[in-house]
């Protein structure tokens, strides 16, 4: 399965994940503290400049990851043009773009394994609340392993449906899909117990 980490190696790939997350937190707090559209425009330009250091194709990929924000930008822009408060509208859009782009930059320059390891370390105090780190790690591995397995089975279910019906497979294939997930869980639990359990 593909991750969101950029295959284009940038200087930021070599920084430790914890440092990047710390810097991101500080950046985000600062962005939400700024109110003036001019200051936010400067901040957004700075974020764009940092992303541009990754090169052409890295910057294009960053831009593509901002696409889901487009409907919100259009709505906010229209709204603030109608209410004649373009300054406030610009501030909202610039803050959103800068904060999301900065966060995406951290995601794109950190390998999945590093990110999981760093966040697992950060979650260690939760052990007192009953979150066993080893069980947590096993759950993560199981989920990642079973996503492609389940995707493949979804495709099989669709093919089986199409072989029998002229209509397109609708919500009905969700039933066998959910049942199969339950059966997988049951069988995997059995297999874990047979190998000495999670203890």
């Amino acid at each position, binding site marked *: 399965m593909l991750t969101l980490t950029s295959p284009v190696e940038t200087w930021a790939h070599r920084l430790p994940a914890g440092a990047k997350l710390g810097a991101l937190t500080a950046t985000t707090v600062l962005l939400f503290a700024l109110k003036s559209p001019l200051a936010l425009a400067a901040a957004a330009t700075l974020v764009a400049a940092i992303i541009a250091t990754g090169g052409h194709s890295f910057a294009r990929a960053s831009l593509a990851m901002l696409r889901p924000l487009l409907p919100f930008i259009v709505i906010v822009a229209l709204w603030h043009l109608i209410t004649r408060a373009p300054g406030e509208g610009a501030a909202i859009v610039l803050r959103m773009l800068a904060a999301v782009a900065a966060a995406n930059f951290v995601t794109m320059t950190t390998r999945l394994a590093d990110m999981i390891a760093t966040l697992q370390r950060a979650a260690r105090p939760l052990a007192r609340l009953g979150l066993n780190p080893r069980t947590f790690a096993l759950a993560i591995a199981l*989920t990642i392993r079973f996503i492609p397995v389940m995707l493949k089975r979804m495709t099989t279910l669709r093919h089986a449906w199409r072989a029998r019906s002229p209509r397109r497979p609708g919500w009905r294939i969700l039933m066998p899909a959910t049942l199969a997930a*339950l059966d997988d869980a049951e069988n995997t639990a059995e297999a874990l117990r047979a190998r000495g359990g*999670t203890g």
Partner: protein
Amino acid sequence: MEKNLTHIALFAALIAVLGLVPKIDLASGVPITAQSLGIMLCGTVLGARNGAAAVLLFLFLTLCGLPLLAGGRGGFGLLASPTIGYLIGFPVAAFVAGAITTHLRANIGLASTIGAFLGGLVLLNGFGVVGMSVMLDKTLPEAALLAAPYMIGDTIKAVLAGLITQTIAAARPAALLSRR
């Protein structure tokens, strides 16, 4: 112990898969992604605690950088985007849907439909609207206007969650952790 663990992990994977499969066209032609249906099912099938845990595991992997959210989204950018309210609401929705399915003294189909409706539609959209209102600096009614079109699909998903949970109760009564 192993059973809770594998159910949590497998249902976290199920939420991801339901967001990745092509959109399902309903009879009316309204395309919906089944991801929030997966959130509801976590609650109604696994119960409050395990359901919420499955959703949290799914969110953890998504934030770590796997593009598992519907539309192939993932990473820390989600925390700064206007839809953050929905992410915060996901585990709460699953918890409430599970608690209602477990404790409401009604047949399983009805109890899980009500649970999915209150948790996955009312509460989840409540969180979503507050999130959009904060992030886009709009009043609550204005933000609610943005969420309104999706509630039709959510109502259908709540009914589907009830139907699927009832089917599971009939086919695998022992596997329904929410009613044990």
